[in-house]
């Protein structure tokens, strides 16, 4: 486990020594602002909360997180670096975790930079800061879930573009399963219990319940388990594909 630290450190550094970090953070901030103010009507609503801001995070992450995740492994495979990584005396899971944590922290940093919106809303009114904190946490978990999916898909291909597109599609499916449109369709022929089961696989359902301020164990373990499963799958995929 002590090997994870240098890996996280190097990965984080690499975001900031290349333009990736700056491009990502700037686009993330602009987009989240645009979504919250223009489409969410954050200001016009006249309510002191950040619900319109957080509501768009799943859709923002749908395209931005795969852009971070796509290079995690496919770049290493493409450059041949994977041969170096896998012959160092380091457990494979340390690499998987280290790279994932660095990318997750990086997205967390981008998320922290949205603090002006929080300050503004506190200046304008008297929002429920506990709820906002929970929403930030939920948003961070959601990003982690997308990232774990992206990590696994990135390990499966040398081509970053393919990794990006596939990750967007898979993440979209995981979002969609909680969409009213989809759930109404299932309601026609499935009992409510099954519909709930479909809804419970959705990132959206769990994210929504966290942003409503209900931070229960179920939602938390849902994200934890999803991340763990996809990361474990990443290590299996690396083994299968590293020789190609």
């Amino acid at each position, binding site marked *: 486990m002590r090997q994870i630290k240098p890996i996280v450190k190097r990965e984080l550094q690499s975001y900031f020594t290349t333009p990736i970090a700056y491009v990502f953070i700037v686009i993330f901030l602009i987009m989240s602002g645009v979504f919250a103010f223009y489409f969410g009507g954050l200001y016009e609503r006249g309510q002191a909360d950040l619900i319109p801001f957080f509501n768009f995070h799943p859709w923002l992450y749908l395209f931005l997180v795969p852009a971070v995740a796509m290079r995690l492994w496919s770049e290493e495979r493409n450059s041949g*670096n994977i041969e*170096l990584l*896998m012959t160092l005396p380091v457990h494979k899971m340390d690499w998987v975790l280290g790279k994932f944590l660095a990318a997750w922290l990086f997205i967390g940093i981008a998320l922290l930079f949205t603090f002006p919106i929080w300050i503004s809303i506190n200046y304008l009114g008297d929002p429920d800061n506990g709820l906002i904190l929970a929403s930030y946490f939920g948003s961070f978990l959601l990003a982690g879930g997308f990232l774990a999916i992206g990590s696994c898909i990135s390990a499966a291909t040398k081509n970053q573009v393919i990794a990006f597109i596939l990750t967007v599609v898979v993440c979209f499916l995981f979002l969609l399963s909680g969409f009213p449109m989809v759930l109404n369709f299932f309601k026609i022929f499935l009992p409510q219990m099954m519909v709930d089961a479909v809804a419970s696989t959705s990132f959206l359902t769990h994210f929504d319940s966290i942003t409503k301020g209900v931070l229960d164990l179920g939602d938390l373990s849902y994200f934890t388990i999803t991340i763990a499963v996809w990361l474990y799958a990443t290590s299996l995929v690396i083994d299968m594909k590293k020789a190609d």
Partner: protein
Amino acid sequence: MPSVLGMIGDNGIVRLNQYLSGVTTIMIECLNLSKKFGQFTAVDDLSFTANKGQVLGFLGPNGAGKSTTMKMITGFLEPTSGQVKVCGIDIADDPISVKSKIGYLPEGAPSYGEMEVGQFLHFVAPLRGIKSTLVKSAVESVISRVNLEKVYFQKIETLSKGFKRRVGLAQAIIHDPEVLVMDEPTDGLDPNQKHQVRELITDMSKDKTIILSTHILEEVHAVCDRAIIIAGGKIVADNTPSEMEGMSRYHHAVSFVSDLDTELLNKIKNMDCVRDVTYDSRLKETTIFPTQGLFIFDEISEFLRKQSIQVKSLKMEAGRLDEVFRNITHSVGEREVVK
């Protein structure tokens, strides 16, 4: 040296000799190693051992299975069947401790291009198992060993091929490994850079076991004390470089440059000790092949003196490795690597 005194027992003398010469420690052991990619057998039942202090050269055509074998020794690929032991440890049992004993330079010396040389080595050092308090001194010593001082703060992607290769070498030897595996360490370098890398290898060979692969036959002579030729995933020859030269038609052949007429050539051809004569009209070079195992240099020079023929650069050849290489490997034929 109490440990040496303790060894002197029934067969103490033998063991003492072994201790002093230190050549009997088996460092790498491959037993019936095979690797299949789908239907394609890349490595086919390969077995060999390498002792401490040996520099082992892997030779063979492209796609012969050299790289695949190295990847199995370093733990990148798991063998389909067979066993790899490094320093007595089976890699299947304890891959991490085997990997910590090996330094590996993969083909093309991959690294992180966006990192500076110093940063990269500081990153690799703790992953190679160096304690955090010793990282700084380890990086400094390896930097001076492979002469990277000038480019310490330079990004790796901006370096020339030779420097990149040296960075790869630096990360491989930073933890002073007992075993060093290098996949085509001099491939694509200019003659000066090749010379530097070879000097480094020779320098390190005293206390390490080194395996390197190459297509360059002169390299085998320059750095290896044993050469294994692999073709079609199998070992087709395992000799010292000079033994391999002995297998050449050119072994102990005599060559010189001179204007000769056909009559003289025939005279030489008819000598008892001569098997064959070739004449290169462009270079005006005559090569005389001896009858198997004979040493004909004295006879030939005596003959030339008697006939008072003016010759330039009269020399005896040791043997041509490329010719031996072609003879051994061409029967196996070329294989396309299908993965």
